[in-house]
C-alpha cells in the first residue's frame, strides 16, 4: 500500500508517505536447563511372526541397518538420544539455568554496530546480565545470527523478567532498537522445617535438631548432602549415618534411610535428618546463654546433575532472656524415682547493676509432671549485683520418663519484675523396684 503511493507522491513534489518501518533484526530469548532423554514405546515382534524378519525385535531407535539392533531392541525405548529442552520447564530457587539470546537478521540488508543489553528484574533487584554497548558487533549480514548464551543462578523465589534490548544501525546510519522479554516464576523447590529441642543436664546440655525436607518439585531430587554447621560454641554429631563395612572390608559412613538406602526424594515426599549438638568443652558454661546454634545446608542434584543448594538462616533456639538473672542447678540426686520427693540445689546469680530481693514462686499451669513438694512460695534472699546465692527446691515427680522442671517464677520485690523459668533442667524419673 505505502509503496505504490510513495512513488507518485514524490514525483509530484509532495511529502513522501512514511514506509512502514520493519525492523531488520529479531531477538528471541529462551530459558532452559539441562536436556532430558528421549523415550518411546517400541513395538516388539518375534521372528516367528510373518513379518518378523522385517520387524525383528523392534524398530531400532537409532540404527537403521538391518541386523544391528543395539538400543531399543528389547522393548526399552530409552537410549542415549536426547531431547532439546523445553522452554516451559519450571526453574527452581538456587538452580542454575541457561539463557539463550538469538539475534537474527531476517532482512536483506546489513545491520551494523549491533549490541545488546540484557537485564534481569525481580521485585527486589535488578541485575545486568550482559551489556555489549561498549563493544558492539561491526556488522551482522542478512540471514545471519549472532547469539549469546548465559548462565544465571536463580537467587530468589520471585517473578523474574528478563528484558533484552538490541541496538543496531541501519545502512543509512539510523539507530534502531528492538527488544524482547520473557517472564517466569522461580519456584521454591523444597520445604525445610526445623525443630529444636534442648535437653538440659547438670553440667551441660544436649540440643537435638530435626530437619525435615519436603520435595515441592515435579521431578525427583537426588540429595547429595545435608550438613549442619554449628556456630562457634558448639560441635555437632551427625545421627544420620552409621558405619558399615563394605564388601572389600572398608569402613565407610552410609546414610541411613528410614525405608530404603536410596537418597532419591520423589515429588511430594519428605525426608528427616537428626543432629545432636553439644557445647564444646571450652564453652560449656557460656553456651547455655547462646541462642544461635548454627545453620543447616542442603545440596541436591536434579536431572543430568543440575546442582542446587539451600541454606537456612541461623537457627535460633528458644531460651529465656538471661540478661538479668541466671539460674543453674548445682546439685541433683543421682537417681530420681517417681512418687518419691527429692531435693535439688540451685544457684541464682544477679546480673543486674542493682541489688535484688528474690522470691521463689510457681505458676501452677506451667508445672507439668514435676511439682513442688512443700512450700511453693518463699523468700530466697537479698542478692547483691554480680553475686549469687544458693537455695534448695523440694520437688515431687508425678510420672516416669524424661521430664522437664518448669513453671518456676523468680520475683524481684525491689523492681517487681518476674522471671519465669520453664526449662530449668531435664531429669529422668525412674520407678523404684
Amino acid at each position, binding site marked *: 500500500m505505502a509503496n505504490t503511493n510513495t512513488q507518485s507522491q514524490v514525483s509530484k513534489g509532495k511529502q513522501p508517505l512514511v514506509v512502514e518501518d520493519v525492523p531488520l533484526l*529479531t531477538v*528471541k530469548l*529462551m530459558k532452559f536447563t*539441562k*536436556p532430558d*532423554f*528421549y*523415550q*518411546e*514405546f517400541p*513395538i*516388539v*515382534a*518375534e*521372528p*516367528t*511372526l*510373518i*513379518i*518378523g*524378519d*522385517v520387524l525383528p*525385535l523392534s524398530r531400532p*531407535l*537409532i*540404527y*537403521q541397518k538391518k541386523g544391528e*539392533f*543395539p*538400543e531399543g531392541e*528389547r*522393548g*526399552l*525405548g*530409552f*537410549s*542415549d*538420544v*536426547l*531431547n*532439546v529442552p*523445553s*522452554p516451559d520447564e519450571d526453574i527452581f530457587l538456587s538452580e542454575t539455568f*541457561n539463557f539463550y539470546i*538469538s539475534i*537474527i537478521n531476517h532482512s536483506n540488508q546489513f545491520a551494523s554496530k549491533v549490541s545488546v543489553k540484557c537485564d534481569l528484574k525481580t521485585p527486589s533487584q535488578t541485575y545486568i546480565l550482559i551489556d555489549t554497548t561498549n563493544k558492539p558487533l561491526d556488522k551482522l549480514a542478512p540471514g545471519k*545470527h549472532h*547469539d549469546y*548464551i548465559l548462565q544465571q543462578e536463580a537467587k530468589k523465589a520471585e517473578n523474574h523478567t528478563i528484558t533484552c534490548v538490541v541496538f543496531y544501525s541501519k545502512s543509512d546510519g539510523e539507530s534502531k532498537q528492538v527488544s524482547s522479554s520473557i517472564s517466569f516464576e522461580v519456584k521454591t523447590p523444597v520445604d525445610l522445617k526445623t525443630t529444636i529441642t534442648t535437653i538440659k543436664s547438670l553440667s551441660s546440655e544436649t540440643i537435638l535438631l530435626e530437619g525435615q525436607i519436603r520435595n515441592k518439585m515435579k521431578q*525427583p531430587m*537426588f540429595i547429595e548432602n545435608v550438613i549442619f554447621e554449628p556456630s562457634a560454641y558448639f560441635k555437632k554429631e551427625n545421627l544420620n549415618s552409621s558405619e558399615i563395612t563394605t564388601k572389600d572390608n572398608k569402613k565407610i559412613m552410609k546414610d541411613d534411610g528410614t525405608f530404603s538406602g536410596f537418597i*532419591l526424594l*520423589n515429588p511430594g515426599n519428605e525426608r528427616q535428618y537428626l543432629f545432636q549438638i553439644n557445647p564444646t568443652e571450652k564453652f560449656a558454661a557460656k553456651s547455655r546463654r547462646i541462642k544461635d546454634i548454627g545453620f543447616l545446608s542442603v545440596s*541436591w*542434584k*536434579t*536431572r*543430568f*546433575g*543440575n546442582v542446587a543448594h539451600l541454606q537456612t538462616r541461623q537457627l535460633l533456639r528458644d531460651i529465656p532472656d538471661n540478661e538479668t538473672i541466671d539460674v543453674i542447678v548445682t546439685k541433683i540426686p543421682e537417681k530420681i524415682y517417681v512418687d518419691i520427693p527429692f531435693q535439688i540445689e540451685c544457684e541464682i546469680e544477679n546480673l543486674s547493676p542493682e541489688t535484688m530481693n528474690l522470691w521463689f514462686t510457681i505458676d501452677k499451669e506451667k508445672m507439668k509432671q514435676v511439682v513442688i513438694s512443700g512450700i511453693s512460695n518463699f523468700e530466697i534472699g537479698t542478692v547483691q549485683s554480680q553475686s549469687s546465692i544458693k537455695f534448695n527446691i523440694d520437688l515431687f515427680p508425678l510420672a516416669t520418663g524424661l521430664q522437664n522442671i518448669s513453671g518456676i517464677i523468680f520475683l524481684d520485690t525491689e523492681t517487681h519484675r518476674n522471671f519465669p523459668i520453664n526449662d530449668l533442667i531435664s531429669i529422668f524419673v525412674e520407678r523404684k523396684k
Partner: protein
Amino acid sequence: MQYLTQEKALSLFFDPTIPPQRATFTRMDEVEKSLEGLKLLANENNWKGVVHLTLILSETYKDDLEISLQIKLIQIIGLIKLELYSRAQDSLQKLGNLNSKQYFYETYPAKFPNRKGSFVPFTLRVLQAEFPYFQGDYDKALENLYTLHSNCIQEIGEIKKKIEDFGGKYPETITEINSPNSLYDQNFMIQNNFETKSNYSIEDIIELTINTVGNVDDLETAKESLSLLEKRSSMILFKIINIHIFQNDFELALNHLNNLYLKFPSDHFLSSTIGRIYLKLGDIESAKKAFEFVEKITGATSIFSKSNSGLVQIALGNYRQARDIFQEIYDNDPNNISALNNLALMHFYTCNLEKAIFTLETFIRKDPVQNLQKVIVNNLSGLYDLGCDNSEEKKKVLSLVYDSYKL
C-alpha cells in the same frame, strides 16, 4: 500463512536441483496380494498399505486359523504405527479373550490332530498387555505386563524342572542376550503343546498366557525353550522398566535392571542403561561407575563407551567436550542417528544455534528415508522456535515433509 501442500513443502525443504530420495512406496495394486506382499509393504514402513492388505488377506486366509490370527495381529500393529489407537483397540477387542477355546488347537481336532495348546503368538499377548499405554493408561499396562511376566517366570520354573528330569543342567547366567543361536532361526517354531495330564481338559488351563513350551521330548529342545523363555521374560521386563523410567520411578527401574544384570553380567546395554538412569536422576558418580563396566566389556574406544562419556560431560556442564565426543562418533559412523542428534544439541548448548539447525537439516536431506525420525523432527522444531523468525512456517514445512515419508 499460505496454504502449503506436501509438494510445496518438499520443494522448500530440499534443494530443487537435487530431487530428494523419495520413499519408495509400492502402491497397493502393484504388490502381490500375498504374505510376501505383506512383508514387502511392512519392510517399507508402508503401514497404510499393510492395513489395507490385511483386510484382503484375512478373507483369503479365513480358513487357516493360525495365519488369519497373525494377519489380524499385523493389522493391529499397522494401526498402532499409524497412531489410529481407537481402531486398533476395536480390532483387539474383537479378538476377545486370548485364553478362550477358539484359540486352542484341541478345539479343532479335525484340522490339528494330536496338537495341543494355544496358537496365539506371543507378540499378540504382549501387545494386548501393553496396549493401555498407547491410550495413556500406564498403570494398567504395568499391571498387565507384570502379570505376563510372572506367568513367564512360572513357565521358566517348569522348564527347568523338565531339564532336571532329563538329567541336564541349565546355565545360571546367560552371557549374551543376542547370541545367534537357533532360537531365532525362522524354522524353529515353538510347539504350542502342553504336556498331557491324565484328567486334562481345556477348562483346567487357567494361566496359559504364553505359547507354552510343551511337547518337549528331549534335553536339547528343553534347553532351547528355556533360552527363549528367558529372552521373552527379559523383553517384558524391559517394557516394564521403560514405563517405570517414564514415570520417574527410578528405584523400581534400577531394581529390575540390577536383577537382570546378575543374570546377564556381560550385557553392556544393561550397564549403559543403568548409567543413563543415574544421569537422569542426577547421581553422576554412580553413572560413572556403571559406565566403567561398559568400558571393561567393550573397551574404552567403543561407540558405546564414547557415547556414555559424552553424556557424562553434559552432566558436568562441559558442553564443548561433549560436542567433540559426539562429533568424533559421528565422523566414524555417519549413520549414527543418536550421535548426530546429540551433536546438534551440543552445538546449541555451545551457542551455535545456526549450526545446530544446519546439522539436523543436512542430516535429513542426506537420507530422508532413513533419517526422518520423530525425535529429529521434534528437536528441529524446537530449535526453529528459538532460531527462526518464521518458525511457524518452517515447522509446518518440516511436518509436511515428515508426513510425506511416512505412509
